[in-house]
């Protein structure tokens, strides 16, 4: 085990991250590096240690980044400090990825030896190049029967423009190639620059919340030094603090006297609420304030919205608490109170993307034991009205009267889609169905094509990923970035049950999609609402115009057989239970709609 005493000189520090497509083995590689560097005893070791949340562990994705300092002794007896900055692995968190990359000098670009280069690999590589990082390609999972390292080398050459012979072959799972990777980190990634004598500038690339210590800032010191007792200022927040503790991110926090230019570590400054800081902000010294901030801050902008209701109205308070707690560690999550006549009290929540939405929903359910109902996800539209005002609308409830609307715009994305050449036809068909605006095709190799497509964000919110996987037989992948707002023809579709609008089911959709979407809702609702003793009409409407309709036939028999030998009690108890069940249903007009009907309609994503 390397000597841990005394600071490691800056020329022996390496700051790096691992970038990879989901499931290409990033967390497993991180675990192996941590194990090899003695960062954790076997007893402490748990598989995929960096993914600390159960949810991340289960889904095999990293949502909240963790970082760790490793000590690595080379063959020549030098001890290097390797700061592994973890990065989240999904498109929703692309800005977090960027912030992580900003704190590094190099990146391990992990490619699955069987899957090869995927859309996200390309996207990540471009970002790494943007920040001038030294990229070390690693071909992982070479132990798999389907591994084809030679083909992957070709892809690395043709699709990423990297030297394929610099790629390290590894199997993180079996611990193969780890030594070579550590060598490459030491020899190919440059030491951090920066002058410890300059005024302090440190980038807050992440933060954690500690129940006892408050906010723990994870920082990359770019210039100068930060030490205990310093008075510091958060530039963007314009707040001053006294540094209580600085240290290294070993598996447990390890206090040190000073973090100098180039170092990655943590700082505790007596900040109580995570809302009081901004990830990406710059820390400076109040005594010797640097004049310019580091690039890196961007307001987290939710792009996907959904209304979240507790299944049991009694859980409203608990939901509010839970959202408060989650947002402590997740500043990108926004929420505000909302009321629905059908569903009662809930919250309109904003998310970075669909995965973010899924993750929040699952954490609310799993960690807080809540049963929830989520409305169909929506994007944020821009609506200009006749009076010259511009409204941002993500909630159908606030959609202005169409009579006063001048124009509407919706967000577009540029999707980068990597597919086998033979899937071009079906993928173009899928894209056309999704209101494709423009597309460009790059033939990357003899077998693979990249489609650059511009299309509305709203069109990838519903089952786009699943459909892409289906039409490409599992070989397609995509990534996207937000592009701009473009003019659109938006309508608000209402769902009526016997003429009464069910507010929780209203949605904003493109004119072309209104009819199929409305019909899909009507049909699912018709299946889920039990028969009544009268006919129920379920309609989709735009304003006063009916665009879809289904009926639930009237119940023509609802009377049980005889009361056996005068046994009235059994029958009465059954009716009592049924009457109780009715009370828990939502009443819309004269129709009783069970919660399960809302769940059935809302949870299955409309394919239309």
């Amino acid at each position, binding site marked *: 085990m390397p000597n841990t005493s005394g600071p490691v000189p800056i020329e022996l520090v390496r700051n790096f991250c691992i970038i990879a497509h989901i499931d290409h083995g990033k967390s497993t590689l991180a675990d192996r590096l941590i194990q090899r560097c003695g960062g954790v005893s076997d007893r402490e070791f748990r598989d995929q240690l960096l993914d600390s949340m159960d949810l991340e562990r289960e889904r095999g994705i990293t949502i909240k980044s963790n970082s760790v300092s490793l000590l690595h002794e080379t063959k020549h007896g030098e001890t290097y400090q390797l700061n592994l900055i973890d990065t989240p692995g999904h498109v929703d968190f692309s800005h977090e990825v960027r912030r992580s990359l900003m704190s590094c000098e190099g990146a391990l670009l992990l490619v699955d030896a069987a899957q090869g280069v995927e859309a996200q690999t390309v996207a990540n590589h471009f970002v790494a190049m943007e920040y001038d990082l030294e990229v070390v390609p690693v071909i992982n999972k070479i132990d798999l029967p389907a591994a084809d390292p030679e083909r992957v080398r070709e892809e690395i050459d043709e699709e990423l423009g990297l030297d394929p012979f610099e790629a390290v072959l590894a199997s993180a799972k079996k611990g193969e190639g780890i030594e070579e990777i550590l060598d490459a980190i030491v020899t190919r990634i440059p030491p951090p620059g920066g002058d410890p004598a300059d005024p302090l500038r440190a980038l807050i690339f992440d933060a954690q919340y500690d129940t006892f210590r408050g906010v723990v800032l994870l920082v990359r010191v770019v210039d100068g030094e930060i030490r205990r007792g310093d008075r510091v200022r958060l530039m963007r927040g314009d707040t001053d603090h006294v540094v209580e503790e600085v240290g290294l991110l070993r598996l447990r926090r390890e206090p040190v006297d000073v973090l100098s230019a180039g170092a990655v570590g943590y700082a505790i400054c007596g900040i109580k609420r995570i809302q009081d800081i901004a990830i990406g902000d710059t820390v400076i010294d109040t005594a010797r304030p640097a004049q310019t901030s580091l690039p890196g801050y961007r307001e987290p902008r939710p792009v996907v919205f959904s209304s979240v209701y507790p299944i049991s109205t009694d859980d409203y308070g608990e939901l509010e608490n839970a959202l408060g707690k989650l947002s402590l560690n997740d500043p990108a999550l926004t929420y505000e109170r909302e009321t629905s006549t059908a569903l009662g009290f809930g919250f309109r929540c904003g998310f970075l993307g669909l995965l973010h939405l899924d993750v929040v929903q699952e954490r609310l359910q799993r960690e807080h034991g809540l049963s929830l109902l989520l409305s169909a996800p929506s994007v944020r539209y821009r609506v200009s009205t006749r009076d010259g005002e511009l409204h941002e609308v993500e909630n159908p409830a606030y959609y202005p009267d169409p009579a006063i609307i001048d124009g509407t715009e919706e967000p577009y994305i540029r999707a980068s889609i990597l597919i086998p050449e033979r899937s071009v036809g079906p993928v173009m068909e899928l894209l056309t169905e999704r209101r494709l605006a423009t597309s460009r095709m790059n033939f990357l190799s003899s077998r693979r094509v990249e489609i650059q497509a511009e299309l509305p964000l709203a069109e990838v919110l519903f089952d786009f990923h699943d459909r892409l996987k289906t039409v490409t037989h599992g070989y397609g992948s995509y990534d996207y970035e937000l592009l701009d707002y473009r003019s659109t023809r938006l309508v608000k579709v209402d769902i009526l049950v016997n003429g009464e609008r069910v507010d929780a089911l209203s949605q904003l959709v493109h004119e072309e999609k209104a009819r199929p979407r409305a019909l899909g809702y009507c049909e699912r609702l018709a299946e889920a609402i039990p028969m009544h003793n009268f006919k129920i009409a379920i309609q989709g409407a735009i304003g006063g115009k009916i665009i879809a309709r289904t009926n639930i036939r009237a119940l023509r028999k*609802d009377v049980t057989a005889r*009361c056996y030998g005068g046994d*009235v*009690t059994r029958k009465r108890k059954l009716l009592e239970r049924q*009457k109780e069940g009715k009370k828990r249903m939502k009443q819309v007009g004269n129709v009783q709609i069970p919660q399960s009907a809302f769940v059935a309609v809302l949870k299955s994503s409309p394919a239309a």
Partner: protein
Amino acid sequence: MTERPDSTSLSPDPLTETPEPAAPGLYVHVPFCSRICPYCDFAVTPLGGPGSERLDRYRHALLTELELRAAALGADTVYFGGGTPSLAPAGFFREVALAASERGLASPSPFIFLEANPEDLVHDPELARQWAAEEIWGVSLGVQALDESRLRFLGRAHNASDAAVAVSRLAEAGIPWISVDLIYGTAGQTPESLREELVAMAALPGVNHISAYELSIEPGTPFGRRRARGETLAVRSEDGSALFHAVHETLRESGFAAYEACNFATAPEFRSRHNRKYWSLVEYLGVGPSAHSFAPERGERFWNRRAFEHWEEAILRGEEPTAERETLRPYERALEEVFLRLRTTDGLPLGGFSARYGEAVVRANRRLFGKWRARGLVELRGDEMTGCLRPTREGLAVADALAREMNLDALTADRDAA
């Protein structure tokens, strides 16, 4: 003996009024069958044949139970249900009725009814005449079907011609009330094939009452186990509703008017004198294993131990064989009154209802009643507060749904507090 009236003189109006039964009833459960039908979940045990030792033990315990429960009940109907009462010797019924009269439980000459299996009447050509000699008023025959394959499916021991023979023997013997039971809704049954069976059943000379029930598959029965294994034994519920309406239409055309969701009679006087007591919340005492009782003055329902041995054991210890009792709270009683009365064409008299549970309850449901009327589910005789809500056929078909829709919240405060 009462002549069966000429069907042309029948009023087809299902709403024909008859005075409600007022005197209490006595139900006697005979827990024996020679074989157990696969759909049955009554309290029954197989019995080798009449005269066996278990039957003697039963008779002894039953007469003792009548002693234990002696009270001034004065029932004017004594109904032997089962099980298979027709397995008992012909003299058994009058003996029990007399014993009940002696204990004050029955009037001196009550109407005696019994349930019978057709094959028992076929095997013993004298049986019907013996019953008539014992002044049995009515016999309810477990015909269940006239289609041979349906009879086999239902595990019945008789065939269609046995059923016809049994009915004719009862009629020839002069039994005044002859009822046949039918179970419909077995898998594959269509409204057309059901109509054929019903027409044939209604045409059996002497039949003046028909009970037609949809097959319900109960857990714990052979059918329940077969369904659990994935077998389809009954029609889907939508088809069941078509069959329900086919039953009502066909029987009406055949001269049988519905007076309850599942019961039909050729004339008001042939409505079941005993079963109507269940639907109109009249007092009744049940004796024998698993029998249920209702004591409206105490607002109490209670029922006997279900297993023969447990029932017998309590009696031999000199105790009433009651298994459980419940005292109905106003909400429960009102709910019972709603769902039971709305099963019958006599309907729900609102005046009495509001006298018992308060005007507020009726007022709270006035709009609902209006909707029911608008949908043709009920008719209102009289005014909104004191009239009588009478279900139409469409209403009878959804009586349970109507009971669920009733707003009885004004009565739930005491229930929630309890």
